[in-house]
Protein backbone atom coordinates (compact mmCIF):
# COMPACT_ATOMS: atom_id res chain seq x y z
CA UNK A 1 0.00 0.00 0.00
CA UNK A 2 1.44 3.39 -0.86
CA UNK A 3 1.48 6.47 1.33
CA UNK A 4 -1.56 8.08 -0.28
CA UNK A 5 -3.64 4.93 0.15
CA UNK A 6 -2.62 4.70 3.76
CA UNK A 7 -3.55 8.34 4.41
CA UNK A 8 -6.93 7.86 2.72
CA UNK A 9 -7.65 4.82 4.88
CA UNK A 10 -6.75 6.81 8.00
CA UNK A 11 -9.31 9.45 7.03
CA UNK A 12 -11.95 6.77 6.47
CA UNK A 13 -11.07 5.24 9.79
CA UNK A 14 -11.50 8.57 11.61
CA UNK A 15 -14.69 9.66 9.87
CA UNK A 16 -16.52 6.35 10.18
CA UNK A 17 -14.92 5.21 13.40
CA UNK A 18 -13.65 1.91 11.99
CA UNK A 19 -10.12 0.66 12.66
CA UNK A 20 -7.81 0.68 9.63
CA UNK A 21 -7.35 -3.10 9.86
CA UNK A 22 -11.06 -3.55 9.26
CA UNK A 23 -11.01 -1.45 6.09
CA UNK A 24 -10.19 -2.72 2.64
CA UNK A 25 -9.27 -0.77 -0.49
CA UNK A 26 -12.09 -2.55 -2.28
CA UNK A 27 -14.81 -1.16 0.01
CA UNK A 28 -17.64 0.84 -1.48
CA UNK A 29 -20.43 2.85 0.10
CA UNK A 30 -22.41 -0.34 0.61
CA UNK A 31 -19.73 -1.88 2.80
CA UNK A 32 -19.74 0.93 5.38
CA UNK A 33 -22.97 1.40 7.34
CA UNK A 34 -22.43 4.96 8.52
CA UNK A 35 -21.50 6.15 5.01
CA UNK A 36 -24.74 8.05 4.44
CA UNK A 37 -25.22 11.52 2.97
CA UNK A 38 -23.97 13.13 6.17
CA UNK A 39 -20.99 10.77 6.23
CA UNK A 40 -20.30 11.76 2.65
CA UNK A 41 -19.97 15.41 3.62
CA UNK A 42 -17.76 14.66 6.59
CA UNK A 43 -15.58 12.52 4.39
CA UNK A 44 -15.20 15.19 1.74
CA UNK A 45 -14.46 17.87 4.32
CA UNK A 46 -11.86 15.67 5.96
CA UNK A 47 -10.18 14.93 2.62
CA UNK A 48 -10.09 18.61 1.82
CA UNK A 49 -8.43 19.60 5.06
CA UNK A 50 -6.09 16.57 5.10
CA UNK A 51 -4.85 16.91 1.50
CA UNK A 52 -5.41 20.63 1.01
CA UNK A 53 -7.56 20.09 -2.06
CA UNK A 54 -10.99 21.18 -3.16
CA UNK A 55 -13.60 19.03 -4.85
CA UNK A 56 -15.97 20.49 -7.38
CA UNK A 57 -19.60 20.34 -6.37
CA UNK A 58 -20.32 17.77 -9.09
CA UNK A 59 -17.47 15.57 -7.94
CA UNK A 60 -18.61 15.29 -4.34
CA UNK A 61 -21.25 12.66 -4.95
CA UNK A 62 -19.04 10.64 -7.28
CA UNK A 63 -16.88 9.52 -4.38
CA UNK A 64 -18.67 6.23 -3.83
CA UNK A 65 -15.82 3.90 -2.93
CA UNK A 66 -12.42 3.96 -1.29
CA UNK A 67 -10.75 3.39 -4.65
CA UNK A 68 -12.61 6.33 -6.20
CA UNK A 69 -11.51 8.53 -3.29
CA UNK A 70 -7.91 7.61 -3.96
CA UNK A 71 -8.25 8.28 -7.69
CA UNK A 72 -9.87 11.67 -7.20
CA UNK A 73 -7.41 12.77 -4.54
CA UNK A 74 -4.50 11.63 -6.70
CA UNK A 75 -5.91 13.60 -9.60
CA UNK A 76 -6.56 16.71 -7.51
CA UNK A 77 -3.15 16.70 -5.82
CA UNK A 78 -1.44 16.18 -9.21
CA UNK A 79 -3.29 19.16 -10.61
CA UNK A 80 -2.26 21.41 -7.75
CA UNK A 81 1.41 20.33 -7.82
CA UNK A 82 1.49 20.90 -11.59
CA UNK A 83 0.25 24.39 -10.98
CA UNK A 84 3.13 25.05 -8.64
CA UNK A 85 5.63 23.87 -11.26
Amino acid at each position, binding site marked *: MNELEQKVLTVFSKVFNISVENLSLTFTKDDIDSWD*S*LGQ*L*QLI*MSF*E*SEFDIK*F*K*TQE*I*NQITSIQKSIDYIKHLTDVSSNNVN
Partner: protein
Amino acid sequence: MNIYFLGNYTQELIAKEFEVITKKETPDINVFVSGYNQYKQEIINKESLLYSLKPEIIILSLDLFTLLDDLIYTESKMDSRIDRIIDRIEENIKLFIILSDNLSGSQIFIDNFFFFRPATMATLEYNSSNSYLEAEEISNLKLTELARKLHNVKIIDTKSLIKQFGINNLFDERMHYIAKSHWSLNGIKQLSKLYIRYINAYKGKRKKCLILDLDNTLWGGIIGEDGIENIQLSNDGIGKAFYDFQREIYKLYKRGILLVLNSKNSKDIALNAIDNHPYMILRSKHFICSKINWNNKAQNLEEIAQEINIGMDSFVFLDDSPFERELISTRFPEVYVPELPEDPSEYPNFIRKLEVFDFLDITKDDLHRNEMYIENKKREYLKTSINNIEDFYYSLKMIASIGRVTDFDIPRISQMTQKTNQFNLTTKRYTMTEIKNFQIAENYDVYVLNLTDKFGDNGIVGTAIVKKESKKTVIDSFILSCRVIGRTAETALLNYIIREAIKSGKRKISGEFIETKKNSPCNNFYKSHNFKQIRKNYWVANLETYKVKDIPWIKINGTN
Protein backbone atom coordinates in the same frame (compact mmCIF):
# COMPACT_ATOMS: atom_id res chain seq x y z
CA MET B 1 -28.54 17.04 29.60
CA ASN B 2 -30.55 17.34 26.38
CA ILE B 3 -29.70 19.92 23.73
CA TYR B 4 -32.04 20.40 20.79
CA PHE B 5 -31.07 22.02 17.50
CA LEU B 6 -33.91 23.66 15.59
CA GLY B 7 -33.57 25.40 12.27
CA ASN B 8 -34.34 25.81 8.63
CA TYR B 9 -31.15 24.27 7.22
CA THR B 10 -29.12 21.09 7.75
CA GLN B 11 -27.61 21.37 11.22
CA GLU B 12 -26.43 17.78 11.62
CA LEU B 13 -22.76 18.43 10.95
CA ILE B 14 -22.74 21.32 13.41
CA ALA B 15 -24.55 19.23 16.01
CA LYS B 16 -22.06 16.41 15.53
CA GLU B 17 -19.03 18.63 15.95
CA PHE B 18 -20.69 20.27 18.95
CA GLU B 19 -21.37 16.89 20.52
CA VAL B 20 -17.81 15.67 20.05
CA ILE B 21 -16.35 18.73 21.78
CA THR B 22 -18.95 18.86 24.54
CA LYS B 23 -18.79 15.15 25.38
CA LYS B 24 -15.22 15.57 26.59
CA GLU B 25 -16.38 17.70 29.52
CA THR B 26 -20.02 16.71 29.83
CA PRO B 27 -20.33 12.99 29.05
CA ASP B 28 -24.04 12.84 29.84
CA ILE B 29 -25.03 15.16 27.00
CA ASN B 30 -27.60 14.17 24.35
CA VAL B 31 -27.85 16.16 21.16
CA PHE B 32 -31.02 16.17 19.04
CA VAL B 33 -31.53 17.79 15.66
CA SER B 34 -34.93 18.61 14.23
CA GLY B 35 -35.76 17.33 10.76
CA TYR B 36 -34.69 19.54 7.88
CA ASN B 37 -36.65 22.83 8.05
CA GLN B 38 -39.10 21.35 10.56
CA TYR B 39 -38.78 24.08 13.15
CA LYS B 40 -42.26 25.51 12.54
CA GLN B 41 -44.01 22.18 12.87
CA GLU B 42 -41.96 21.32 15.96
CA ILE B 43 -42.92 24.61 17.61
CA ILE B 44 -46.60 24.59 16.67
CA ASN B 45 -47.35 20.92 17.21
CA LYS B 46 -47.77 20.29 20.92
CA GLU B 47 -47.14 16.59 20.38
CA SER B 48 -43.74 17.11 18.77
CA LEU B 49 -40.56 15.41 19.95
CA LEU B 50 -39.34 18.83 21.04
CA TYR B 51 -42.12 19.19 23.60
CA SER B 52 -42.03 15.62 24.80
CA LEU B 53 -38.29 15.88 25.46
CA LYS B 54 -38.38 19.28 27.17
CA PRO B 55 -34.68 19.79 26.45
CA GLU B 56 -32.73 21.93 28.86
CA ILE B 57 -31.21 23.90 26.00
CA ILE B 58 -32.55 24.78 22.55
CA ILE B 59 -30.45 26.30 19.82
CA LEU B 60 -32.54 27.87 17.09
CA SER B 61 -30.83 28.98 13.91
CA LEU B 62 -32.53 30.40 10.83
CA ASP B 63 -30.75 31.14 7.59
CA LEU B 64 -32.08 34.35 6.07
CA PHE B 65 -31.60 33.25 2.45
CA THR B 66 -33.67 30.15 3.04
CA LEU B 67 -36.22 32.07 5.07
CA LEU B 68 -36.65 34.80 2.46
CA ASP B 69 -35.83 32.90 -0.73
CA ASP B 70 -39.18 33.55 -2.44
CA LEU B 71 -39.19 37.24 -1.51
CA ILE B 72 -35.65 38.00 -2.57
CA TYR B 73 -36.17 36.93 -6.16
CA THR B 74 -39.73 38.05 -6.49
CA GLU B 75 -40.54 40.33 -9.41
CA SER B 76 -43.53 41.92 -7.75
CA LYS B 77 -43.85 45.54 -6.72
CA MET B 78 -40.36 46.50 -5.64
CA ASP B 79 -41.34 49.04 -3.04
CA SER B 80 -43.21 46.59 -0.88
CA ARG B 81 -40.46 43.99 -0.70
CA ILE B 82 -38.87 45.20 2.50
CA ASP B 83 -42.24 45.30 4.23
CA ARG B 84 -42.89 41.74 3.17
CA ILE B 85 -39.49 40.70 4.48
CA ILE B 86 -40.23 42.32 7.82
CA ASP B 87 -43.64 40.62 7.93
CA ARG B 88 -41.94 37.28 7.38
CA ILE B 89 -39.52 37.97 10.25
CA GLU B 90 -42.38 38.95 12.51
CA GLU B 91 -44.25 35.73 11.74
CA ASN B 92 -41.17 33.87 12.92
CA ILE B 93 -40.77 35.99 16.01
CA LYS B 94 -44.31 34.97 16.97
CA LEU B 95 -43.14 31.36 16.82
CA PHE B 96 -40.28 32.19 19.15
CA ILE B 97 -42.78 33.55 21.68
CA ILE B 98 -44.82 30.35 21.48
CA LEU B 99 -41.67 28.30 21.96
CA SER B 100 -40.58 30.36 24.94
CA ASP B 101 -44.04 30.02 26.50
CA ASN B 102 -44.36 26.30 25.94
CA LEU B 103 -40.89 25.53 27.28
CA SER B 104 -40.61 28.09 30.03
CA GLY B 105 -38.11 25.96 31.96
CA SER B 106 -35.75 25.61 29.01
CA GLN B 107 -33.04 27.99 27.93
CA ILE B 108 -33.54 29.05 24.30
CA PHE B 109 -30.67 30.44 22.26
CA ILE B 110 -31.41 32.09 18.92
CA ASP B 111 -28.74 32.94 16.35
CA ASN B 112 -29.01 36.50 15.20
CA PHE B 113 -29.84 37.04 11.52
CA PHE B 114 -27.37 37.54 8.73
CA PHE B 115 -26.95 36.91 5.00
CA PHE B 116 -24.08 34.53 4.47
CA ARG B 117 -23.21 36.06 1.08
CA PRO B 118 -21.84 39.50 0.27
CA ALA B 119 -24.40 42.28 -0.19
CA THR B 120 -26.70 41.12 -2.95
CA MET B 121 -27.46 44.48 -4.48
CA ALA B 122 -23.87 45.61 -4.87
CA THR B 123 -23.61 49.41 -4.97
CA LEU B 124 -27.37 49.71 -4.72
CA GLU B 125 -27.29 48.16 -1.26
CA TYR B 126 -28.38 50.83 1.26
CA ASN B 127 -29.09 53.12 -1.69
CA SER B 128 -32.36 51.52 -2.61
CA SER B 129 -35.56 51.20 -0.67
CA ASN B 130 -35.15 47.42 -0.92
CA SER B 131 -31.86 46.97 0.84
CA TYR B 132 -31.33 43.44 2.13
CA LEU B 133 -28.89 44.60 4.71
CA GLU B 134 -31.44 47.06 6.00
CA ALA B 135 -33.85 44.15 6.29
CA GLU B 136 -31.18 42.20 8.14
CA GLU B 137 -30.63 45.03 10.57
CA ILE B 138 -34.34 45.53 11.21
CA SER B 139 -34.76 41.79 11.76
CA ASN B 140 -32.02 41.82 14.36
CA LEU B 141 -33.49 44.83 16.14
CA LYS B 142 -36.81 43.03 16.42
CA LEU B 143 -35.12 39.88 17.65
CA THR B 144 -33.12 41.71 20.30
CA GLU B 145 -36.20 43.54 21.49
CA LEU B 146 -38.01 40.23 21.84
CA ALA B 147 -35.21 38.48 23.70
CA ARG B 148 -35.11 41.20 26.32
CA LYS B 149 -38.75 40.56 27.11
CA LEU B 150 -38.56 36.77 27.41
CA HIS B 151 -36.81 35.40 30.48
CA ASN B 152 -35.56 32.24 28.78
CA VAL B 153 -34.45 33.58 25.38
CA LYS B 154 -30.91 34.76 24.66
CA ILE B 155 -29.38 35.85 21.38
CA ILE B 156 -26.19 34.29 20.08
CA ASP B 157 -24.15 36.82 18.16
CA THR B 158 -23.34 34.46 15.33
CA LYS B 159 -23.08 37.37 12.95
CA SER B 160 -19.94 38.45 14.81
CA LEU B 161 -18.15 35.38 13.43
CA ILE B 162 -18.27 37.02 9.99
CA LYS B 163 -16.38 40.03 11.30
CA GLN B 164 -13.87 37.78 12.93
CA PHE B 165 -13.29 35.16 10.20
CA GLY B 166 -14.80 36.49 6.99
CA ILE B 167 -17.41 35.08 4.64
CA ASN B 168 -15.00 32.99 2.55
CA ASN B 169 -13.63 31.29 5.60
CA LEU B 170 -16.95 30.44 7.24
CA PHE B 171 -19.23 29.48 4.39
CA ASP B 172 -19.17 27.07 1.50
CA GLU B 173 -21.50 27.54 -1.44
CA ARG B 174 -21.12 23.87 -2.39
CA MET B 175 -22.60 22.87 0.94
CA HIS B 176 -25.47 25.25 0.43
CA TYR B 177 -26.39 23.61 -2.87
CA ILE B 178 -25.80 19.94 -2.13
CA ALA B 179 -26.39 19.73 1.61
CA LYS B 180 -28.70 22.67 2.36
CA SER B 181 -26.24 24.02 4.87
CA HIS B 182 -24.04 27.00 4.19
CA TRP B 183 -21.24 26.42 6.72
CA SER B 184 -17.75 25.32 5.71
CA LEU B 185 -15.67 22.92 7.79
CA ASN B 186 -14.03 25.85 9.56
CA GLY B 187 -17.42 27.54 9.93
CA ILE B 188 -18.80 24.45 11.64
CA LYS B 189 -15.89 24.46 14.06
CA GLN B 190 -16.18 28.13 14.89
CA LEU B 191 -19.96 28.00 15.27
CA SER B 192 -19.78 24.99 17.60
CA LYS B 193 -17.19 26.77 19.70
CA LEU B 194 -19.42 29.82 19.88
CA TYR B 195 -22.40 27.73 20.99
CA ILE B 196 -20.31 26.11 23.70
CA ARG B 197 -19.16 29.51 24.87
CA TYR B 198 -22.76 30.65 25.34
CA ILE B 199 -23.73 27.44 27.09
CA ASN B 200 -20.80 27.78 29.47
CA ALA B 201 -21.89 31.34 30.21
CA TYR B 202 -25.41 30.05 30.86
CA LYS B 203 -24.05 27.39 33.19
CA GLY B 204 -21.99 29.97 35.02
CA LYS B 205 -18.74 28.25 34.08
CA ARG B 206 -16.39 31.15 34.42
CA LYS B 207 -13.34 32.27 36.33
CA LYS B 208 -13.94 34.28 39.49
CA CYS B 209 -10.77 36.19 40.14
CA LEU B 210 -8.21 38.11 38.09
CA ILE B 211 -4.70 38.39 39.54
CA LEU B 212 -2.75 41.35 38.19
CA ASP B 213 0.82 42.51 38.07
CA LEU B 214 1.62 46.26 38.16
CA ASP B 215 4.81 47.19 36.23
CA ASN B 216 4.34 46.84 32.47
CA THR B 217 0.91 45.36 33.09
CA LEU B 218 -1.37 47.98 34.65
CA TRP B 219 1.01 50.76 33.63
CA GLY B 220 4.04 51.00 31.36
CA GLY B 221 7.46 51.18 32.98
CA ILE B 222 8.73 50.32 36.43
CA ILE B 223 7.36 52.43 39.25
CA GLY B 224 10.34 51.83 41.55
CA GLU B 225 12.75 53.19 38.90
CA ASP B 226 10.71 55.57 36.75
CA GLY B 227 8.64 57.20 39.50
CA ILE B 228 4.98 58.16 39.52
CA GLU B 229 5.46 61.01 36.98
CA ASN B 230 7.16 58.86 34.37
CA ILE B 231 5.17 55.65 34.19
CA GLN B 232 3.09 55.27 31.02
CA LEU B 233 -0.51 55.87 31.97
CA SER B 234 -2.43 58.74 30.44
CA ASN B 235 -5.23 59.70 28.12
CA ASP B 236 -3.17 59.78 24.96
CA GLY B 237 -0.35 57.90 23.28
CA ILE B 238 0.72 54.49 24.54
CA GLY B 239 -0.24 55.52 28.08
CA LYS B 240 -3.85 55.45 26.84
CA ALA B 241 -3.48 51.74 26.05
CA PHE B 242 -2.77 51.02 29.72
CA TYR B 243 -5.60 53.36 30.71
CA ASP B 244 -8.02 51.52 28.38
CA PHE B 245 -6.72 48.19 29.65
CA GLN B 246 -7.64 49.28 33.17
CA ARG B 247 -11.06 50.44 31.98
CA GLU B 248 -11.70 46.99 30.51
CA ILE B 249 -10.66 45.37 33.77
CA TYR B 250 -12.91 47.77 35.67
CA LYS B 251 -15.84 46.49 33.60
CA LEU B 252 -15.08 42.98 34.85
CA TYR B 253 -14.90 44.34 38.40
CA LYS B 254 -18.38 45.81 37.96
CA ARG B 255 -19.67 42.39 36.90
CA GLY B 256 -18.37 40.85 40.10
CA ILE B 257 -15.01 39.49 39.01
CA LEU B 258 -12.65 39.79 41.98
CA LEU B 259 -9.39 41.64 41.44
CA VAL B 260 -6.13 40.92 43.21
CA LEU B 261 -2.64 42.42 42.99
CA ASN B 262 0.42 40.21 42.99
CA SER B 263 3.40 42.42 42.30
CA LYS B 264 7.08 42.58 43.14
CA ASN B 265 7.44 46.13 44.37
CA SER B 266 7.97 48.27 47.43
CA LYS B 267 4.51 48.48 48.84
CA ASP B 268 4.47 52.20 49.71
CA ILE B 269 5.75 53.33 46.33
CA ALA B 270 3.27 51.14 44.47
CA LEU B 271 0.30 52.13 46.64
CA ASN B 272 1.15 55.79 46.22
CA ALA B 273 0.92 55.39 42.44
CA ILE B 274 -2.26 53.31 42.65
CA ASP B 275 -4.11 55.80 44.79
CA ASN B 276 -2.69 59.10 43.55
CA HIS B 277 -1.88 58.76 39.86
CA PRO B 278 -4.49 60.85 38.01
CA TYR B 279 -5.11 58.19 35.34
CA MET B 280 -5.25 55.16 37.57
CA ILE B 281 -8.72 53.60 37.20
CA LEU B 282 -8.13 50.72 39.58
CA ARG B 283 -7.51 52.05 43.07
CA SER B 284 -6.65 50.04 46.17
CA LYS B 285 -10.31 49.80 47.15
CA HIS B 286 -11.02 47.76 43.98
CA PHE B 287 -8.66 44.99 44.99
CA ILE B 288 -10.09 42.41 47.29
CA CYS B 289 -6.57 41.50 48.33
CA SER B 290 -3.08 42.79 47.50
CA LYS B 291 0.31 41.18 47.71
CA ILE B 292 2.84 43.87 46.95
CA ASN B 293 6.16 42.58 48.25
CA TRP B 294 9.35 40.89 47.14
CA ASN B 295 8.19 37.38 47.84
CA ASN B 296 7.90 34.60 45.36
CA LYS B 297 4.64 35.10 43.41
CA ALA B 298 3.61 31.48 43.81
CA GLN B 299 3.80 31.84 47.57
CA ASN B 300 1.74 35.04 47.32
CA LEU B 301 -0.83 33.23 45.23
CA GLU B 302 -1.12 30.48 47.78
CA GLU B 303 -1.90 33.06 50.45
CA ILE B 304 -4.37 34.82 48.17
CA ALA B 305 -6.26 31.57 47.58
CA GLN B 306 -6.48 31.00 51.31
CA GLU B 307 -7.57 34.53 52.09
CA ILE B 308 -10.40 34.76 49.62
CA ASN B 309 -11.25 31.11 49.95
CA ILE B 310 -11.76 30.05 46.32
CA GLY B 311 -10.25 27.16 44.40
CA MET B 312 -7.12 27.49 42.27
CA ASP B 313 -9.17 26.75 39.15
CA SER B 314 -11.08 30.04 39.67
CA PHE B 315 -8.01 32.23 39.10
CA VAL B 316 -6.66 33.98 36.02
CA PHE B 317 -3.09 35.18 36.35
CA LEU B 318 -1.98 38.16 34.23
CA ASP B 319 1.66 39.14 34.16
CA ASP B 320 3.93 40.55 31.46
CA SER B 321 6.84 38.42 32.64
CA PRO B 322 7.15 35.02 30.96
CA PHE B 323 9.20 33.91 33.96
CA GLU B 324 6.40 34.61 36.46
CA ARG B 325 3.81 33.03 34.15
CA GLU B 326 5.94 29.91 33.85
CA LEU B 327 6.42 29.81 37.62
CA ILE B 328 2.68 30.00 38.31
CA SER B 329 1.58 27.58 35.61
CA THR B 330 4.14 25.01 36.71
CA ARG B 331 3.37 25.36 40.39
CA PHE B 332 -0.45 25.62 39.95
CA PRO B 333 -1.55 23.99 36.70
CA GLU B 334 -5.22 24.68 37.56
CA VAL B 335 -4.67 28.44 37.38
CA TYR B 336 -5.39 29.90 33.93
CA VAL B 337 -2.26 31.73 32.80
CA PRO B 338 -2.83 33.35 29.39
CA GLU B 339 0.03 34.94 27.52
CA LEU B 340 -0.21 38.72 27.67
CA PRO B 341 0.54 40.25 24.22
CA GLU B 342 4.04 41.65 23.74
CA ASP B 343 2.74 45.04 22.66
CA PRO B 344 0.65 46.97 25.21
CA SER B 345 -1.52 48.46 22.43
CA GLU B 346 -3.02 44.95 22.22
CA TYR B 347 -3.76 44.80 25.96
CA PRO B 348 -7.32 46.23 25.84
CA ASN B 349 -8.34 43.86 23.02
CA PHE B 350 -6.75 41.02 24.91
CA ILE B 351 -9.17 41.54 27.80
CA ARG B 352 -12.12 41.94 25.43
CA LYS B 353 -11.26 38.63 23.80
CA LEU B 354 -10.64 36.63 26.98
CA GLU B 355 -13.33 33.97 26.90
CA VAL B 356 -13.26 33.03 30.55
CA PHE B 357 -15.42 35.78 32.04
CA ASP B 358 -18.57 35.28 29.94
CA PHE B 359 -21.95 36.28 31.33
CA LEU B 360 -25.49 35.98 29.93
CA ASP B 361 -27.16 37.83 32.77
CA ILE B 362 -25.76 39.98 35.47
CA THR B 363 -27.51 38.98 38.69
CA LYS B 364 -27.87 41.28 41.66
CA ASP B 365 -25.38 39.08 43.46
CA ASP B 366 -22.82 39.46 40.68
CA LEU B 367 -23.08 43.25 40.86
CA HIS B 368 -22.51 43.27 44.59
CA ARG B 369 -20.01 40.45 44.87
CA ASN B 370 -17.03 42.73 45.38
CA GLU B 371 -18.81 44.75 48.07
CA MET B 372 -19.90 41.54 49.74
CA TYR B 373 -16.36 40.20 49.92
CA ILE B 374 -15.14 43.44 51.41
CA GLU B 375 -17.96 43.41 53.97
CA ASN B 376 -16.88 39.88 54.79
CA LYS B 377 -13.39 41.09 55.52
CA LYS B 378 -14.79 43.58 58.00
CA ARG B 379 -16.73 40.77 59.65
CA GLU B 380 -13.56 38.71 59.91
CA TYR B 381 -11.89 41.64 61.55
CA LEU B 382 -14.72 41.95 64.04
CA LYS B 383 -14.43 38.26 64.81
CA THR B 384 -10.79 38.60 65.81
CA SER B 385 -11.56 41.62 67.97
CA ILE B 386 -14.31 39.95 69.98
CA ASN B 387 -13.45 37.10 72.31
CA ASN B 388 -16.77 35.42 72.82
CA ILE B 389 -18.19 33.89 69.63
CA GLU B 390 -21.80 34.48 70.70
CA ASP B 391 -21.02 38.17 71.24
CA PHE B 392 -19.67 38.17 67.72
CA TYR B 393 -22.86 36.61 66.37
CA TYR B 394 -24.98 39.14 68.22
CA SER B 395 -22.81 42.00 67.02
CA LEU B 396 -23.52 41.05 63.40
CA LYS B 397 -27.24 41.78 63.83
CA MET B 398 -28.16 39.02 61.39
CA ILE B 399 -31.59 38.74 59.83
CA ALA B 400 -32.44 35.55 57.94
CA SER B 401 -35.31 35.53 55.45
CA ILE B 402 -36.37 32.02 54.62
CA GLY B 403 -39.08 30.88 52.27
CA ARG B 404 -39.94 28.75 49.30
CA VAL B 405 -38.17 29.33 46.02
CA THR B 406 -39.72 31.83 43.60
CA ASP B 407 -39.22 31.93 39.82
CA PHE B 408 -36.88 34.82 40.33
CA ASP B 409 -34.53 32.72 42.53
CA ILE B 410 -34.29 29.71 40.23
CA PRO B 411 -31.13 30.77 38.35
CA ARG B 412 -29.29 31.51 41.59
CA ILE B 413 -30.41 28.25 43.25
CA SER B 414 -29.32 26.22 40.24
CA GLN B 415 -26.04 28.13 40.24
CA MET B 416 -25.53 27.27 43.93
CA THR B 417 -26.06 23.56 43.35
CA GLN B 418 -23.67 23.67 40.41
CA LYS B 419 -20.91 25.66 42.01
CA THR B 420 -20.91 25.25 45.77
CA ASN B 421 -18.46 22.60 46.92
CA GLN B 422 -17.61 23.25 50.54
CA PHE B 423 -20.82 23.45 52.54
CA ASN B 424 -22.76 21.06 50.35
CA LEU B 425 -24.06 17.93 52.07
CA THR B 426 -24.80 15.85 48.97
CA THR B 427 -23.19 17.83 46.09
CA LYS B 428 -26.09 17.05 43.74
CA ARG B 429 -25.92 19.36 40.72
CA TYR B 430 -29.22 20.64 39.34
CA THR B 431 -30.12 22.59 36.24
CA MET B 432 -32.67 25.41 36.19
CA THR B 433 -35.20 23.01 34.70
CA GLU B 434 -34.69 20.54 37.50
CA ILE B 435 -35.09 23.21 40.16
CA LYS B 436 -38.24 24.40 38.40
CA ASN B 437 -39.54 20.81 38.48
CA PHE B 438 -38.86 20.56 42.22
CA GLN B 439 -40.64 23.87 42.71
CA ILE B 440 -43.83 22.67 41.05
CA ALA B 441 -43.71 19.07 42.34
CA GLU B 442 -46.20 18.37 45.14
CA ASN B 443 -43.80 16.15 47.04
CA TYR B 444 -40.81 18.50 47.00
CA ASP B 445 -39.99 21.84 48.57
CA VAL B 446 -37.12 24.11 47.72
CA TYR B 447 -36.17 26.55 50.49
CA VAL B 448 -34.15 29.70 50.04
CA LEU B 449 -32.16 31.49 52.72
CA ASN B 450 -31.27 35.16 52.43
CA LEU B 451 -29.04 36.73 55.05
CA THR B 452 -28.63 40.40 55.91
CA ASP B 453 -26.36 41.77 58.59
CA LYS B 454 -25.11 45.12 59.76
CA PHE B 455 -22.57 45.24 56.94
CA GLY B 456 -25.07 44.65 54.19
CA ASP B 457 -27.15 42.16 52.26
CA ASN B 458 -25.37 38.88 51.57
CA GLY B 459 -28.00 37.87 49.01
CA ILE B 460 -29.13 34.28 48.69
CA VAL B 461 -26.65 32.26 50.70
CA GLY B 462 -28.42 29.01 51.41
CA THR B 463 -30.79 26.55 49.87
CA ALA B 464 -32.30 23.22 50.76
CA ILE B 465 -34.28 20.78 48.66
CA VAL B 466 -36.47 18.39 50.62
CA LYS B 467 -38.62 15.47 49.59
CA LYS B 468 -41.85 15.04 51.51
CA GLU B 469 -42.82 11.43 52.17
CA SER B 470 -45.97 10.52 54.06
CA LYS B 471 -44.46 10.57 57.56
CA LYS B 472 -40.98 11.80 56.83
CA THR B 473 -39.08 14.73 55.37
CA VAL B 474 -35.94 13.74 53.46
CA ILE B 475 -33.23 16.32 52.90
CA ASP B 476 -32.05 15.89 49.32
CA SER B 477 -29.70 18.86 49.19
CA PHE B 478 -28.52 21.35 51.75
CA ILE B 479 -26.14 24.08 50.64
CA LEU B 480 -24.59 27.11 52.26
CA SER B 481 -22.47 29.66 50.43
CA CYS B 482 -18.89 29.84 51.70
CA ARG B 483 -19.44 33.56 52.31
CA VAL B 484 -21.45 32.78 55.44
CA ILE B 485 -19.86 29.62 56.77
CA GLY B 486 -19.28 29.85 60.51
CA ARG B 487 -22.20 32.11 61.36
CA THR B 488 -24.84 29.52 62.29
CA ALA B 489 -27.01 30.49 59.30
CA GLU B 490 -27.27 26.78 58.42
CA THR B 491 -29.00 26.22 61.75
CA ALA B 492 -31.56 28.89 60.89
CA LEU B 493 -32.34 27.11 57.64
CA LEU B 494 -32.51 23.66 59.22
CA ASN B 495 -34.76 24.90 62.05
CA TYR B 496 -37.11 26.37 59.49
CA ILE B 497 -37.31 23.07 57.59
CA ILE B 498 -37.94 21.21 60.81
CA ARG B 499 -40.72 23.58 61.84
CA GLU B 500 -42.37 23.16 58.44
CA ALA B 501 -42.05 19.37 58.75
CA ILE B 502 -43.63 19.37 62.20
CA LYS B 503 -46.42 21.66 60.99
CA SER B 504 -47.31 19.23 58.23
CA GLY B 505 -47.37 16.29 60.66
CA LYS B 506 -44.11 14.56 59.77
CA ARG B 507 -42.61 12.26 62.40
CA LYS B 508 -39.07 12.07 61.13
CA ILE B 509 -36.48 13.97 59.19
CA SER B 510 -33.53 12.32 57.52
CA GLY B 511 -30.60 13.22 55.37
CA GLU B 512 -27.44 11.95 53.82
CA PHE B 513 -23.91 13.23 53.97
CA ILE B 514 -22.02 12.36 50.79
CA GLU B 515 -18.36 13.02 51.34
CA THR B 516 -16.31 14.71 48.60
CA LYS B 517 -12.78 16.08 48.47
CA LYS B 518 -14.05 19.52 49.28
CA ASN B 519 -17.03 19.30 51.62
CA SER B 520 -15.31 18.72 54.95
CA PRO B 521 -16.67 22.06 56.33
CA CYS B 522 -20.05 20.37 56.73
CA ASN B 523 -19.07 16.83 57.72
CA ASN B 524 -20.24 17.41 61.28
CA PHE B 525 -23.54 19.05 60.32
CA TYR B 526 -26.02 16.32 61.22
CA LYS B 527 -24.20 15.26 64.36
CA SER B 528 -23.97 18.79 65.71
CA HIS B 529 -27.68 19.23 65.05
CA ASN B 530 -28.70 16.23 67.15
CA PHE B 531 -29.38 13.78 64.31
CA LYS B 532 -28.58 10.11 64.89
CA GLN B 533 -26.53 8.07 62.47
CA ILE B 534 -28.40 4.89 61.61
CA ARG B 535 -26.05 3.68 58.93
CA LYS B 536 -22.94 5.07 57.34
CA ASN B 537 -23.52 8.71 56.37
CA TYR B 538 -27.27 8.39 56.81
CA TRP B 539 -28.77 10.50 59.59
CA VAL B 540 -32.21 10.70 61.14
CA ALA B 541 -33.94 12.78 63.80
CA ASN B 542 -37.21 11.97 65.48
CA LEU B 543 -39.35 15.07 65.27
CA GLU B 544 -41.49 14.19 68.26
CA THR B 545 -38.51 14.45 70.56
CA TYR B 546 -36.19 16.69 68.53
CA LYS B 547 -34.27 19.30 70.45
CA VAL B 548 -34.05 22.47 68.38
CA LYS B 549 -30.70 24.23 68.56
CA ASP B 550 -31.47 27.81 69.52
CA ILE B 551 -29.78 30.66 67.71
CA PRO B 552 -31.25 33.77 69.34
CA TRP B 553 -28.70 35.99 67.57
CA ILE B 554 -30.38 35.51 64.19
CA LYS B 555 -33.73 37.16 63.65
CA ILE B 556 -35.90 35.03 61.36
CA ASN B 557 -38.26 36.42 58.76
CA GLY B 558 -40.43 33.76 57.19
CA THR B 559 -41.34 34.97 53.73
CA ASN B 560 -44.34 32.78 53.04
